[in-house]
């Protein structure tokens, strides 16, 4: 009887389990398998190549650049979007009115399609017809150059400043110069994602009990910074862990801007993992290599999630 009941239990859960296996786990498993082969789409068979794909990834400079690019992007965009998101959330939370308007405005880039926005940014930052460089150039020889080159400060040589140098030698190719491209892509990444973090932080802020701030006031926390340190930041701990994890995963997944604007260049300086997967597996039809990158990518994300789950989360939930 018990065995029969047990069996029926499995029957009832089978649809869910099968769906989970087919839709969620099987693709990962297939990708992991393919990463040990030289399979190309359309081929009827493939050869096992063992760890060759992985060895390539850690020895060839292209893939080293890929990992460097992804990690750089993550390390700039995550802190940037979190600091801005938290700052915006704190400011909006302190408002009595118009908070909703600001929320909507800051959230606009999150709602907009990043691909479309990337094209807008490409135009804006175009070296010759873009509005940014035109505006900057119009300031040359005028007040903006004098002001921003800081030549008016004692002991500062204004002519060697960034602005003055650019006035003489031309303003940067934002997406063509290796020195600027990564920074520009990161800027767009931050611009696009901080609104999302802001919304998460706003939710976190509203859940802080007001009595804690009043207790802090009674205890003598006069300065805003003291209250932030004593109440706001610790109480936002769980939110921060979540925001960091989500932002990191999303930053590892950056693709739209790279594909639309730089295509991994110049000199592979923005050759991020997602773009590499796309290029290898789809464009070059090297499915085996692409799968290997997918596996490494998944490893990064899993590592992050487990770190969050087991190391950090315990420290920020206080009960």
């Amino acid at each position, binding site marked *: 009887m018990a065995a029969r009941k047990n069996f029926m239990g499995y029957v009832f859960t089978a649809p869910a389990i099968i769906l989970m296996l087919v839709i969620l786990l099987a693709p990962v498993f297939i990708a992991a398998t393919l990463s040990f082969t030289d399979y190309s789409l359309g081929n009827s068979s493939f050869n096992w190549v063992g760890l060759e794909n992985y060895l390539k990834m850690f020895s060839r400079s292209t893939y080293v650049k890929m990992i460097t690019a992804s990690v750089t992007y993550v390390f700039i965009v995550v802190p940037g979007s979190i600091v801005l998101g938290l700052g915006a959330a704190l400011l909006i939370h302190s408002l009595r009115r118009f908070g909703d308007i600001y929320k909507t405005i800051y959230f606009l880039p999150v709602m907009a399609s990043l691909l479309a926005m990337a094209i807008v940014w490409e135009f804006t930052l175009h070296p010759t017809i873009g509005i940014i460089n035109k505006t900057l150039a119009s300031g040359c020889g005028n007040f903006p150059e004098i002001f921003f080159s800081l030549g008016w400060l004692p002991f500062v040589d204004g002519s060697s400043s960034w602005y003055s140098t650019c006035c003489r030698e031309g303003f940067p190719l934002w997406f063509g110069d290796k020195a600027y491209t990564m920074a520009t892509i990161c800027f767009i990444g931050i611009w696009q994602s901080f609104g999302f973090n802001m919304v998460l932080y706003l939710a976190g802020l509203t859940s802080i*009990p007001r*009595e*804690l701030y*009043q*207790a802090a*006031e*009674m*205890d*003598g*926390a*006069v*300065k805003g*910074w*003291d209250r932030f340190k*004593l*109440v706001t930041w*610790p*109480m936002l*701990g769980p939110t921060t862990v979540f925001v960091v994890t989500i932002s990191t995963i999303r930053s590892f997944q950056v693709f739209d801007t790279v594909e639309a604007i730089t295509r991994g260049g110049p000199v592979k300086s923005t050759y991020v993992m997602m773009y590499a997967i796309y290029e290898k597996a789809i464009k070059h039809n090297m499915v085996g290599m692409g799968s290997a990158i997918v596996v490494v990518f998944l490893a990064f994300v899993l590592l992050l999630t487990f770190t969050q789950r087991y190391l950090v989360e315990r420290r*920020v939930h*206080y*009960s």
Partner: protein
Amino acid sequence: MADIRLRSIEKMYGETAALCGIDLDIRDGEFLTLVGPSGCGKSTLLRIIAGLEEQTRGEVEIDGKSVNKIRASKRDLAMVFQSYALYPHLTVWQNMITPLRLRDLSSLERMPFIGRFVPGQRDKVKSLHTLAGETAHTLKLEQLLHRKPGQLSGGQRQRVALGRAMVRKPRAFLMDEPLSNLDAALRVHMRAELAELHRNLKTTFIYVTHDQAEALTMSDRIAIMIDGEIIQLGTPDEIYKNPRDRRVAEFVGSPKINILSGDVDESGNVSIMGNHTGIRIRKRIKKVHLGIRPEHFRLVNGNGATDSWPFHVTYKENLGSDFYLHGHLNGSKNRIITRAAPDEVGRITIGETVKVRARQGKPMVFCDNDCRIDVMQEAGYGSA
């Protein structure tokens, strides 16, 4: 150590008045309780004293100086919140030392690492630790110092909240329903502990509660607040025995005072549903309300007594030491509760009609709009 004076405090929330002209003198070292039903403005008043809310009009004076313009953190008062409001990420010890650090150390001295190199910082920190240690000892918190609030029971959290308030040796303690989150037994225990703490500290305590029992047991004086006004201010004894308003009489005392409507004849004699009460009033009105506390009824033996009222018993409540008899007089709708000793009640069954009378001098007379009417004389009736 402070006396606190409130002068015609008013608080408006938009068009609605939460407090309408509160005048109150709180003496140095006094335990004053603000008590009233929820929504009467008692917490608002406490928060105005604390400086967490601003009054619409009126003055708050501490030690003779107006503090209207001084923010909460500079008033040197300590507050215990209903939710305790402990910092959940800090240990008990850190929670207790936080107010001291914020008061005595500059922001530079509080910085990690750098703070240690500020001259004199070590000595300051040492003295803070001594202070916090003393408080922990007084409140018997030594075993819990390294725990976080989440790992403590309600009573322990309560004590930590008290400790955090005490370490600074503030001029006065403000307590906003601090016992309402505890279970009944612990509440009774903490009542005694708080009263003892007040005796030892000799500091001004302002205590807000909706529980009249807490007010009666702990306070030096009680201010009864209803609808944004203080209706009566007095010692617990005065408030209980001599309420000047029907609402006060009804609020204080458990079970609630019995209110019976009475008729007055031309010469001022009050009768309840045809039964004489022997109470005479001078005021020339037709209707009055008679308030009699449950313990002021007496059961009368035998049927011979003519000065007693028939009481139909509908329910017997056994409290061990006492019995409460629920029922009604003369078949009226009003539910009446009387107290009786267990040995008197033994033979009474539910549904039976017994005779009761009010003890002499105890019934209180109220007019239609809650005011108290003084009794002129009581005929030699019902001598107990």
